[in-house]
């Protein structure tokens, strides 16, 4: 299935891109991040992140569907 991924902050810097669409068999955000972390050597552990699917927070074991947009959210620092 095709999944669109948007990157922000440190992940955007380490990926060298802000958005991409990939073909993946990853059934959940947990598996997807583990694949991407290996591929792009992301420094952030999943325990430091939250995940959003289609513009709202989601669980790491959320079932991904074709066409979903996924965002991994690094530790926030507003204010």
């Amino acid at each position: 299935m095709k999944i669109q991924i948007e990157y922000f902050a440190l992940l955007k810097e380490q990926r060298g891109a802000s958005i991409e669409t990939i073909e993946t068999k990853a059934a959940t955000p947990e598996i997807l991040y583990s694949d991407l972390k290996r591929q792009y050597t992301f420094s952030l552990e999943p325990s430091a992140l939250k995940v959003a699917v289609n513009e709202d927070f989601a669980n790491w074991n959320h079932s991904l569907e074709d066409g979903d947009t996924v965002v991994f959210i690094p530790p926030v620092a507003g204010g």
Partner: protein
Amino acid sequence: MQFQITDQEIKPESLRREILRDVSGAYVSFEGWVRNHNDGKPVNGLEYSSYIPLAEKEGMRILSEAKERYRIEAAACVHRIGSLKIGEIAVWVGVSAAHRDAAFDANRYIIDQTKARVPIWKREAYLDSPAEWVNCTDDTPG
């Protein structure tokens, strides 16, 4: 109730007018400013970025929670993104209420929750070392 991410300069005077109510006898505002140091390091400037659709959605949830928890009449929060210089306003929170206790408490709740939950990131540029994404370099996010 309004929670907004903006790339424009924050102007408290016009924001304040938005939450004036005839029933309100108290108004509390908070401004977060860019300061010239963090963790003992001299800071040259900041860059904020945000996942805007989710930030505004989560921000509106925070404002609704504040309205449920405290007896307030109106609340708003605006957070700036982009490059900011020392002394510029990064975030503004305003609350109006019949009485001051609720206005103080709700304002504190909104800024604390915003800092903890809303997807906004800060990259600090230092005078004497490479720029860093705040909270992203340690194993224990602060």
